[in-house]
């Protein structure tokens, strides 16, 4: 079976093995069942060969010599001895050296029980130490960041954390200091290890030198009960392990998922576990009592009251009077249940999981998708529009950074103000807020300096990271830019930059206006879904801004907030307040209290992440499993169960009795998920990537998984099919669809209409997913007398989860406003002045910091950092936010 071209034959401990060309000896040996001990080597980082633990005897023809196997590339006929007397003596010696100054305080060390130094000492080390001198002493432990302690006595100076900080995260804040036996890892004074990724250093530390404050002294590893899951902190979908003890989540540990997170987690994801057990968790239903204050009530009473409100609304205004905002927090299965309740029982299409801070779901659903691996391909090009990945999709930033710094990828960044990608980008172009499509048009035309950008994009298929960089402008410009790129470069693919945890599931499962599960439009899906649901909305509903505007005008009877806090989160604070106040009844389904749950009439407590089973859909459309580890507080229930209960009280039966049950229904009804079984989902730990469905549904055995080497090729083929389908003649497509529908009907009749499952199995594939239509959009002309507002996201903000996790709450930077010094000079504003910033919507008083990286004519302010907040300035119905700045006398 050996392919001479693609393998190198080496001998390891007398056994001939096949190594990959260019592979390191340490990896080749491990793949072939020989584990070489190591401390400094970490396969996601460049080797440094400094701990010397992996010394093996290698003969490349000039006699055996000790060599570090982590720095040695395999060569033909290499002979490696990992257990020869010389190699064993060296390994013994290294372990003895590492232990002479190690405090051996294992009984009080968090790492004890899962410590590579302990394990290696048992497996490879000498039985006892000959060291009788005094050990090295340092102050124990010192705090190097808000969440990480460093115990320098335990440190074995392997360079893993320092390499991670410098090479992986790009936050060069921890360093080796001093020398010889006094060498230590430390920060410089006044420069703490303030990295979004600091927790990873704790995870990769091979001893207990770095410990996480939130986990310190909480448990011993052997007491932990673990389950693998998928982080729902944002939409990247990092794989992690949930560690719990006595029904309490104590930490998350990153899992090395090759296509996604490479074992890394961001600190928000890692330490967000504290929000699970937060005291503030909603644990019993609440309803407004006679005095108008929220008081605990029974589930039966709360659900009955909620159903009564919905029914009353239906009687008064029909389905359009009921609206649902939110749902991105939910698992795929809960999203489907809620979509079925809202669209298939109540009949309203005014359902939107995004809070006016994302991109139109139908557009995102229709763009050709890329995976993270494709976006980060070696030598590839990534065009970033909108979102700042470090703040919005933190671990994706690490993947992008790796692609640039180690694999010659090229970044083109289009953003109104500098982002984390600016220093990595080959081309960093500043755009006028709300007019990125104009810049894209000039790139496509190759105007002036932008010709170089066009040439870079023309080099080959590239990926666009498409997000909503600023909520102070409408998303039309971004979508117009995507449309133009798709037309100019037909091979282009898009990686969604939408950040809310399962926002991509919400797009797939119909928690978006105009979409039904499977990314099908209302028109296309009307007939198909009528066969499974008791009703299907006929008219496209409102998005969140539309819902709030309608509610403000008294047109919404029942507003359901599904894990959404429009009062705190919607970019336009005034509209949110009027909307929530204007709805006759507000029902909030949530895990934690927020401004919006406090304003609700009925609050239903939901079970959250780690408390529910299900699946998650990430930015790539990757389905991966989410597992329950602990029980929800009090009587909180999974969201899907709440939907089923409400449906029951509305006189309908969702016929959904378990998570697996829901998935079975999804795999029948959703054209995007057809044929994917619960068993497959459980088997594929790296998840299953969904591609835009081709007109014919993929049979189960053709479902693409990452476990297969042929993935890229298969994906490319599927992609070509999809593009071809998009480009197909409209008439032909319509005919095909009609034919399919007729067949379905025939099949349904043949199956006597009451056995749906059989019908679907025998029947046609169902409706076609939505196609992309580029909107016509023209940005308003720049007003020379105003500054245009850019409002971006930070990883740590005043959001509910961050604020419920004590270790994260303080990391939110707080509000700040930045403008170009030239603008401030022109306006006669100094950094010390208090200013009034006024838009057509409202005003706020603050100070403005001069920042030369903010382009002239632009003013920048982070969202979600508390007051003063840009949400006082933003009008969700306008294309851009123009503001004026004047000093307050």
């Amino acid at each position, binding site marked *: 079976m050996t392919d001479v071209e693609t393998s190198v034959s080496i001998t390891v401990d007398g056994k001939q093995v096949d190594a990959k060309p260019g592979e390191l000896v340490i990896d080749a040996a491990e793949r072939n069942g020989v584990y070489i001990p190591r401390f400094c080597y970490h396969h996601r980082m460049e080797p440094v060969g400094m701990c010397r633990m992996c010394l093996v005897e290698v003969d490349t023809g000039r006699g055996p010599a000790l060599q570090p196997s982590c720095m040695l590339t395999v060569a033909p006929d290499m002979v490696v001895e990992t257990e020869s007397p010389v190699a064993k003596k060296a390994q013994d*010696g290294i372990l003895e*050296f590492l232990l002479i100054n190690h405090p051996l305080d294992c009984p009080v060390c968090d790492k004890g029980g899962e410590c590579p130094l302990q394990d290696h000492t048992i497996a490879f080390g000498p039985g006892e130490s000959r060291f009788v001198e005094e050990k090295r002493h340092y102050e124990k432990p010192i705090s190097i960041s808000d969440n990480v302690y460093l115990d320098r006595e335990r440190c074995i100076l392997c360079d893993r954390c320092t390499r991670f900080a410098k090479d992986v995260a790009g936050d060069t804040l921890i360093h*080796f200091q001093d020398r*010889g*036996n006094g060498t230590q890892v430390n920060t410089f004074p006044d420069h703490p290890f303030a990295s979004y990724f600091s927790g990873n250093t704790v995870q990769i530390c091979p001893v207990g030198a770095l410990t996480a404050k939130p986990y310190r002294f909480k448990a011993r590893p052997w007491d932990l009960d673990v389950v693998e899951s998928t982080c729902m902190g944002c939409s990247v979908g990092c794989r992690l392990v949930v560690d719990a003890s006595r029904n309490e989540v104590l930490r998350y540990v990153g899992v090395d998922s090759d296509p996604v997170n490479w074992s890394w987690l961001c600190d928000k994801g890692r330490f967000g576990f504290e929000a699970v057990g937060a005291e503030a968790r909603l644990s019993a239903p609440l309803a407004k009592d006679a005095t108008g204050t929220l008081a605990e009530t029974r589930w039966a009473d709360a659900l009955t009251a909620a159903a009564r409100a919905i029914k009353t609304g239906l009687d008064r205004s029909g389905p359009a009077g009921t609206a649902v905002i939110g749902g991105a927090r939910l698992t795929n299965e809960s999203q489907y249940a809620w979509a079925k309740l809202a669209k298939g029982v109540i009949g309203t299409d005014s359902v939107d999981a995004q809070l006016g801070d994302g991109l139109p779901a139908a557009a995102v659903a229709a763009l050709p998708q890329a995976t993270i691996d494709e976006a980060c391909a070696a030598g590839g090009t990534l065009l970033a529009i909108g979102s700042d990945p470090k703040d919005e999709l933190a671990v994706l930033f690490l993947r992008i950074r790796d692609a640039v710094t180690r694999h010659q990828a090229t970044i083109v960044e289009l953003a109104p103000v500098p982002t984390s990608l600016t220093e990595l980008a080959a081309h960093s172009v500043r755009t006028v807020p709300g007019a990125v499509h104009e810049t894209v048009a000039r790139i496509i035309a190759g105007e002036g300096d932008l010709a170089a950008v066009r040439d870079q994009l023309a080099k080959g298929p590239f990926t666009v990271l498409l997000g909503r960089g600023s909520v102070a402008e409408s998303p039309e410009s971004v979508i117009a830019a995507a449309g133009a790129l798709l037309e100019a470069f037909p091979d282009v693919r898009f990686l969604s930059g939408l950040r809310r945890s399962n926002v991509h599931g919400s797009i797939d499962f119909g928690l978006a206006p105009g979409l039904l599960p499977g990314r099908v439009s209302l028109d296309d899906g009307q007939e198909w879904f009528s066969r499974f649901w008791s009703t299907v909305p006929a008219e496209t509903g409102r998005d969140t801004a539309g819902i709030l505007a309608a509610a403000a005008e008294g047109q919404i009877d029942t507003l359901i907030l599904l894990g959404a806090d429009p009062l705190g989160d919607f970019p336009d604070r005034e509209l949110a307040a009027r909307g929530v106040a204007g709805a006759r009844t507000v029902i909030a389904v949530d895990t934690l209290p927020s401004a919006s749950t406090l304003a609700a009439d009925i609050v239903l407590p939901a079970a959250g992440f780690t408390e529910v089973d299900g699946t998650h859909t990430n930015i790539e459309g990757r389905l991966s499993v989410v597992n329950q580890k602990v029980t929800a507080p009090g009587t909180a229930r999974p969201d899907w169960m709440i939907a089923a209960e409400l449906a029951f009280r509305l006189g309908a039966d969702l016929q959904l009795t378990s998570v697996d049950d829901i998935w079975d229904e999804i795999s029948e009804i959703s054209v995007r998920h057809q044929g994917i079984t619960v068993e497959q989902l459980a088997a594929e730990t790296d998840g299953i990537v969904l591609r835009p469905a081709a007109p014919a549904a993929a049979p189960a055995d053709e479902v693409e998984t990452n476990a297969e080497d042929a993935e890229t090729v298969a994906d490319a083929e599927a992609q070509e099919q999809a593009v071809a389908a998009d480009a197909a003649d409209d008439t032909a497509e319509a005919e095909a669809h009609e034919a399919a529908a007729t067949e379905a009907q025939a099949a349904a009749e043949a199956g006597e209409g009451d056995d749906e499952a059989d019908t679907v199995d025998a029947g046609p594939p169902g409706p076609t997913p939505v196609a992309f239509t580029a909107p016509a959009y023209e940005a308003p002309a720049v007003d020379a007398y105003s500054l245009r507002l850019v409002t971006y996201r930070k990883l740590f903000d005043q959001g509910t989860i961050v604020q419920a996790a004590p270790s994260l709450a303080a990391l939110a930077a707080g509000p700040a406003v930045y403008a170009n010094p030239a603008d401030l000079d022109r306006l006669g504003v100094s950094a010390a002045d208090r200013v009034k910033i006024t838009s057509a919507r409202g005003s706020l008083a603050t100070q403005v910091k001069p920042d030369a990286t903010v382009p002239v004519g632009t003013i920048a302010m982070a969202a979600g950092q508390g007051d003063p907040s840009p949400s006082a300035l933003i009008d969700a119905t306008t294309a851009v936010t123009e503001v004026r700045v004047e000093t307050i006398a």
Partner: protein
Amino acid sequence: MAVTDAPKIITTRFDQPDGHTLDGYLRTGGYAGIKAALAKKPADVVEEVKTASLLGRGGAGFPAGVKWGFCPPGVFPRYLVVNGDESEPGTYKDRLLMERDPHQLIEGVLIACYAVGCSQAFLYVRGEMAFAQERIAAALNEAYEAGYVGKNILGSDFSVDIVLHWGAGAYIVGEETALIESLEGNRGMPRLKPPFFPAAKGLYLQPTIVNNVETLANLPWIISNGGASFAALGAENSRGMRMFAVSGHVKNPGVYEVEFGVTTFRDLLYAPVYGGGIRGGKELKAFIPGGASAPWLYPEHLDTPLEAGVVGKMGTMLGSGAIVVFDEDTDMVKACLRLVRFFARESCGKCTPCREGTSWLEKILERILDGHGRPEDLDLLLDVCDNISVGMNWPPKQTTICPLGQSATTPVASAIMRFQDEFEAYIGAPSEITVEVKGPAFVGPYDAAAKEVASVD
């Protein structure tokens, strides 16, 4: 005595009061070498240096002309880095060359750059050598002003920029890959070779030639007088003249330029023009032949010529050309501790065996001197050494990236194997040594009579 009358080559201006100035340099034939070099093809300059058989004077003793040839062809830019981080205890020859004849070094740099095809050179001078830095800075300014350095040197199309860089005070930076790291602005820690052989992947991962100050200082004379004239001096495998720094218990410590390979240790330590004999008329007990890292030699080795090959076969080295003399009164346990402490303090901390092992050695030696030694400590010391330098052999096989850790083991092995009785005197009990030590300089055979003279009464 075989003190030869060979002409001095690189120390001719040491006694000239203005030898460090451009005027003084030009008056004594300065910058003739670069003029001669520019008249030749670069390849011919390389040939001339190969003919001279100039061995690198930094410690490893690799032929300079051959080293230059290791740059992969056609890969540019290439850099020349001058290793002026002279820090080996007992070594102070490069400091004098930089202080007293900086133009000679600059001219050597120009010739090397021309030969190798470098357009930029970096002069890395040890941080503590303020005077040398000043002298080089002044000389560089003069040379730039006069058109010897910079664009279109002497009207030719050959251009070189020379950058003076000050070290930050780390011995390890004398190791060429650590020096390159430091020059790049990083912490001075050695890189693993392979893959980071400087000639292939050096400064900024470009081909880089790292040469010692003394090596380069020889180039003007070689080009002016021809490689053959240089090769006519010295012995078979050690050509030309070489500087040795003599220190310790001699009457006349100092730097002497002697004919390489012909002069013996006895000449250098006892001749009136050189060391002048042991201070106070005492007997010689031992000497370090090539810097603190070198295994020790003893009175019976005095008639060995200063010849790299011969000394290498004895299990030690001429290294950086530093000869440190111990007289009969020297406490060899304390001498051993002093040397080990130096290496322990200067370990960069990168490799575990060196970082942990050298300071462990230091702690054991301290304990022995404090009167708390145990009979098993000598075996322990040697086994710790063995875990840093496998088999205590020569040339050494180390478990570390660079030879620093191994350097700390040589004084331990030398002292214990030759002066076991002195250790036992501190321990107060006899010791048995079971660890196998292979290096020929450590294990003898020693001249029994000489040992008797050397030992403490």
